[in-house]
């Protein structure tokens, strides 16, 4: 069914494409917003990606890879948005932090540190983190999706994770250091 829709959209069927885009929109927007940490930028990125998808759909070789291809377009659009702003990490507006009652990640301070650690990542590292930890793709799938070697995907994931871990650990060290100084 989905393949039929992709085939129809490839042949220029607007309605088929709109069904596909509507069904994928939420997932793409979530990924874009997590990567960019900005609602406005994410909306622009998703719109650009979907327009490019429509225009370039006839060049898609395998209709079964439509979803992965869409993610790739969104990640590229996110990178474009970041390039336009030049200073990705400074220009973006952090998402508001909301304390959750079902919060099993620890304190709100941990979230803030994760946020800061994430903001320091390069766009391509952010994309890999989001695609892996949020969208649930493996490193191999991400590599195929983004057209990069699997080793590169693993490397980006590793460094990104370590950077975020370092941000949390730095936060953990600061109170103890302060206690030592006051002692």
């Amino acid at each position, binding site marked *: 069914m989905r393949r039929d829709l992709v085939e129809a959209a490839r042949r220029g069927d607007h309605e088929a494409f709109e069904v596909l*885009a509507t069904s994928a929109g*939420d997932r793409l927007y979530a990924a874009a917003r997590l990567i960019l940490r900005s609602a406005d930028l994410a909306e622009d990125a998703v719109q650009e990606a979907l327009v490019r998808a429509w225009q370039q759909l006839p060049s898609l070789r395998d209709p079964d890879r439509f979803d992965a291809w869409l993610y790739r377009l969104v990640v590229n659009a996110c990178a474009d948005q970041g390039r336009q702003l030049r200073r990705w990490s400074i220009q973006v507006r952090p998402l508001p932090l909301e304390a959750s009652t079902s919060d099993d990640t620890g304190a709100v301070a941990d979230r803030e540190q994760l946020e800061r650690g994430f903001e320091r990542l390069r766009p391509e590292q952010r994309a890999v983190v989001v695609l892996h930890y949020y969208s649930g793709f493996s490193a191999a799938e991400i590599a195929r999706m983004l057209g990069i070697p699997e080793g590169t995907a693993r490397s980006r994931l590793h460094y990104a994770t370590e950077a975020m871990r370092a941000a949390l650990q730095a936060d953990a060290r600061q109170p103890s250091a302060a206690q030592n100084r006051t002692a």
Partner: protein
Amino acid sequence: MASNRKFDETISTWLEDTAPTGLPQRVLAATFERTRSSRQQLGWRGVLGRLQMPRFIPALGGAAVVVMAAVLALNFMSVSGPGGTTTTSPSAARPATPPAEAQVTELLNSFLAARVAGEGAEEYLSISGDSVSHCCNPPPLLYATTSGAPYDRAEFEPVLGIEWPYGYTAFKVRLFAGDTVVEQLFFWAADNHLELVQRVRFWNRDRANHRGRPARGHALQLLRRRSDPARRPSVGLSRLRETFPPDPGGSRRAADDRRRAARRLG
């Protein structure tokens, strides 16, 4: 290991908690408005994809390609010498020598003479390529500067550093109109076609009133002479400062020769 898994879960949970709920409808609406007013880019794959044909047709096409390749290969082998050495036609090989100096000199001389004379230069030109579609026809500054001053003389010289046969042979052309100099850069394409890419800039000779910004570049094609040579004015304009040595020993040696020639000629 356990702490790694815990940290992975921490990141996942954090991302899920901060993820938005859904794409706003207005974004989808704006997107569809754009897609409905834009056309799909049809590459060869897209065109093939839109063709309604039985599945065996592409396979048949592939088989035909294979057969053609085999026929060509057999044909190629049949012209090989008895000792197994392959003979290739001269036209198949890329020319290893630069265009004849006389050919270039004659063409540029005639072209520039017509520009100084104020007529006939169009016969040498045809505009080609997409880059010119937004530009101009006829090309700018053909017979006069932007202020309308006609040219009184012209000169050209090869530009060093653009190596044959790896790229283009470049010529810097200057047309003088009083104190104003129009400088244009032409490239002689390596495939021996007289296709030239022209970029124009101009300045006043004293440089005090430098006009600075180059005009928009555009592609021109300088054609072989189409009119009767006797009809064109014969004005001795060229000041060819360098010859084009053959390049049997590689581009580096040729470049060295050119640099020595340039130093010798000042």
